[in-house]
């Protein structure tokens, strides 16, 4: 049994979910449409925090923490820092001439994805558990998996995905060196 499973059907969870979702969408629109770059950056932070909230609802607490630490804590600060440095804080966020085609394209893309989302017969975990497809042991193991994600992710990262993990570290190193090279005073 997944911890908290079933409570998702409750009104409270739905209200929380939709609140967070709407705020993410509104924040995203604000990022795009606000003329004030600084405020746009702040709304980006709102969107990131909302995403972290969604992660919590989705039983991915570790990801939620990472999201807050990296996106809200590091990336947002970096972006705001860049905005302050470029001195185009106000009136600095105009559109180019591609609005109409980009809008159409984004709409088409959205329609396509939504078609896929709603046309697919998803094989939902909760439904399978409710139908008793799995044995009691399996159900319990699934529940344990979602409640103890951190050690499991750690084990996966340094065992099964160790190559990708190491490559990621090299990518980060390269990014650091690249950024330093670009910004160095010549």
């Amino acid at each position, binding site marked *: 049994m997944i911890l908290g499973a079933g409570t998702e059907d409750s009104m409270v969870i739905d209200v929380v979910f939709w609140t967070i979702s709407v705020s993410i969408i509104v924040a995203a629109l604000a990022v795009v449409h606000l003329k004030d770059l600084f405020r746009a950056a702040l709304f980006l932070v709102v969107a990131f925090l909302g995403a972290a909230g969604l992660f919590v609802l989705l039983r991915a607490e570790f990801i939620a923490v990472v999201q807050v630490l990296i996106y809200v804590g590091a990336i947002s600060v970096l972006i705001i820092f860049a905005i302050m440095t470029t001195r185009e804080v106000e009136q600095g966020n105009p559109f180019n001439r591609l609005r109409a085609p980009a809008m159409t394209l984004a709409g088409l*893309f959205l329609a396509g994805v939504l078609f896929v989302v709603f046309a697919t017969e998803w094989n939902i975990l909760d439904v399978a558990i409710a139908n008793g497809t799995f044995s009691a042991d399996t159900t319990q193991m699934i529940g344990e998996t979602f409640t103890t994600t951190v050690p499991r992710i750690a084990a996966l990262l340094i065992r099964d995905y160790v190559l990708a993990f190491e490559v990621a570290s090299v990518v980060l190193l390269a990014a650091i060196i690249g950024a330093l090279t670009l910004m160095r005073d010549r």
Partner: protein
Amino acid sequence: MIPEIVLWLIFFIPLGSFLIIAGVIRPFFNRYAFAAGYLTIAAMASALVISIIALASVINEHAGIEYAAHRWLDIGPMNITIGITLDALTGIMLVVVTAVSLMVQIYSTAYMKGDKGYARYYAYMSLFTMSMIGLVLASSVIQIFVFWELVGLCSYLLIGFWYHKPSAAAAAKKAFIVTRIGDFGLLLGILYLFFNQDTLAASGLNSLIVADVNTAAAAGIITSGVATWLAVGIFAGAVGKSAQIPLHTWLPDAMEGPTPVSALIHAATMVAAGVFLVARFFPLFEASKEAMAAVAIIGGVTALFAATIGLVQNDIKRVLAYSTISQLGYMMLALGVGAYGAAIFHLFTHAFFKGLLFLGSGSVSHASGGTFDMRYMGGLRKIMPWTYVTFLIGSLALAGIFPLSGFWSKDEILAHAWGNGDTVSRTVFWLGLIAAFMTAFYMFRALFMTFEGEFRGGAAKDPNAEAHDEGETHPHESPWAMVGPLVVLALAAGAIGFIVNPTTSLGIVPIHWFTEFVSGHLHHETPEFNIPVALISSVLALAGIVLAYGMYGVKRSAIVSPADMGRWFRPLYQLFLNKYWFDEFYEKLLVKRVFYRGLAQGLDWSDKYLVDGLVRVIDRVGKGTGRVVSHLQNGQLQGYGLGISVGIVLIFGIYLAIR
């Protein structure tokens, strides 16, 4: 019976000589270049000894000796072999090649003395002898072709031996290119065999082995029509190599090479390779009447035609060159009328007396300071008696005077042609008879101009001579190394005709031994010695000699002056003097007009406007498209992003649509 390895030695000894000279003596010990000459002579002598043993072995066996072919290359179902054919023809050719080669090498030690390319000369000579031996020993068509081209290469190298002389370089190129035209025909013939081996393979024969091809032709596996084309292809190669019409133009120019080279390659051996080739494929030729007729007619016409040109040449070597062409025509004529034995017999005798005559001309030129122009010779009889006597014997033999060797061989050809009785044979008989008269005339014209009368100054007077001595030229007899081979060859030229092919049994030598021996396996009847034909040809030859004496032999006041003759027969004289304008025809019309202006310029035009045009169109299309499309590359990053996104959405859409 001679083991195969010993036969290979005949081939490998000259090869070893070549390798040692070219790889050791010339690059490292060029100061001791004389060693190259002695090495070559030793090699030739040993090759001659083994060749004689081989010939004796064939005589003892009364038939060709079969050796198993060695597998060389297996390509799919086809296998190319190398091996040795030892039959009467091979045995005789081996002896001829090595014997004449030995004489020429001895002669060359004196003739080439002091030449800067002495070692190179002997390297080429060894290489040539090796190739020629390889050619006569070859049992597979591929082998024949390889050595055929190798002797062509040696001919090229030796004609252009003095490559610093522009005329020699040009003559070498001409020889190579003109013979190449004929070789193309040979190659086509070989390619036909190559691509049609299934026909022969069905009967268990290998189409790339000469003997098998001949067996197939004799047995009718190769049909007459195919045999015609095959024979014509092979004959084209022979025409090029043996300088028959219309590919004869290279041989007179080949006289630019050193005289011993002319004697060995362009008189005795290599040019006879064409005759040898036809003889080698004789059953194939016999399978096609048309091919035989073509061989006979080309040979007959060449015999007469070359003799007419020989009448008016002033260069002694060119007289001999045209004489060689004419005599090779005789041999072809003989093969064409089916006188196989007679053809080889004439090849055999001709090799000795023509080699002798060339060496004699070299001796004469040596004496008179380097010129070959007979107008600047004369009166050499008393100064160089040895050369004179041997040259006289050679001339008599060539003219076909009884009882010298040329008489027997030439007569047998004519008797055979007459005895056949069909139209082609009769026609070529008359051609040959007229040529016999002319042969006697031009040979004795040369003899008289060279040896009789007063000495006319030699090279010092000749405006075209290469080496001008200081002051006058003092003629002298040549050294023993040159005279010796002349004497040996003169003995051979004089006696060998009757000894090897007597008209009556000579005790150990049975009647018509040579002809029977050579053509025994072909089961030909040898015609009886035809006294009327012999008489007529002898009378004609004597008449030629007498006419030559009348015009050139009598001192000062000639009975019939050459100038008068020139006036009376002015058109003919001009025709002969200009060699029927063959060179002009090839050079000015074929090469310059047809090939250069017609073909080359046409191709040039198509290259410029069609090929290049196409390339230019492609270039413009690419450039234009690029210019138009490059407008999309406007530096607007988000435009690119939009393009990428459109692409992704398109792929997404297509995937959804065809899912």
